[in-house]
């Protein structure tokens, strides 16, 4: 075996060992591991939930509930799964259940875009100082406004692809839809986002 092959083999073994110890830790509900995972995935999970729900408060509730569910279902995690795929799948199911419980009259609410005057609550308005706003920038506000016009099903695939860098097959697993649906949502989402940003910036 050449040097490259050996390096790949070692890398694969390391990844397998890591996945194995992750599964073991989750099965044993190792508090140190859970602390580490919460720390490690805090921004990514919160951003995904925020993109999915469009509401900061709801995303915060779901953030906590997702980790509680990870603890409950920890024994079901398989080392062959990518942890983030599993995590986002749990978060998505919770978001749907949460919305169904809160607004039983509109089960499709999660699939609708926000109202015309609403925007994605990307930041906590109560705590935003001038310094923080400068960091967020004008462009971020434009993106937030444009994203508000997309349905959550488009927002979620966009964030999974362009923030998380997930493969299309992984996204299909998370959103529980065929690959063709994921692709068409990505193309349409990207096109709509481009149009809205052009309109906003015009």
């Amino acid at each position: 075996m050449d040097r490259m092959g050996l390096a790949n083999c070692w890398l694969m073994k390391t990844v397998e060992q890591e996945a194995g110890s992750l599964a073991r830790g989750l099965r044993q509900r190792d508090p140190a591991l859970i602390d580490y995972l919460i720390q490690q995935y805090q921004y990514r999970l919160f951003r995904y939930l925020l993109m999915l729900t469009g509401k900061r408060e709801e995303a915060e509730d779901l953030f906590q509930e997702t980790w509680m569910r990870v603890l409950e279902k920890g024994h079901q995690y398989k080392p062959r799964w990518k942890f983030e795929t599993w995590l986002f799948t749990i978060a998505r199911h919770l978001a749907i259940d949460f919305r169904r419980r809160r607004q039983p009259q509109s089960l499709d609410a999660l699939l609708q875009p926000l109202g015309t005057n609403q925007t994605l609550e990307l930041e906590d308005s109560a705590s935003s100082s001038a310094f923080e706003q400068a960091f967020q920038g004008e462009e971020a506000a434009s993106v937030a406004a444009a994203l508000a016009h997309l349905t959550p099903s488009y927002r979620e695939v966009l964030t999974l692809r362009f923030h998380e860098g997930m493969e299309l097959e992984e996204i299909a697993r998370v959103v529980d839809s065929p690959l063709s649906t994921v692709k068409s949502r990505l193309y349409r989402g990207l096109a709509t986002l481009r149009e809205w940003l052009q309109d906003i910036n015009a």
Partner: protein
Amino acid sequence: MREDNHERAVQLIDKMQVEGLAVEEREWLQAHLESCARCQKRALETERVLRALRSIVPRFDLTLVLATQMRARVQAREIVENAARMRALWISCGLSWVLGVVSAPLLWRAFALLGHRLAISRAVWMTGFALSWVAPAAVVAAVIAWRHARGGNVGEEQ
């Protein structure tokens, strides 16, 4: 330049971001973009949109992480403790079942003897035997059901 070349370029610009391009597609697109200002503008616009999308960082309250970690630690401890308790319960369940099976003939004889001595009808002492045999399992089932209901309530309270 032919219009369908522009259409192909526009499709490939999006495909590059969504699915990625094959080598020939990439080469064709590069060559087209070098000679077409309109499609080049479109490609730059798409890149700008994605850069803007990637640049958004939702403000995140770190106390949420601390609160979640705290809650997770408590929940993890509860799950582990409950699992240990349930394990003990199932072991005692299994043992009681084995003992019940082993002691059934003896118990049957004891009930028959007692029924004979006290001149109790056969149906009564047989019912007594059946109840005494079923009682441990019924108690365990009741305890499990009670614990299950209690666990559900604890979850709802949280």
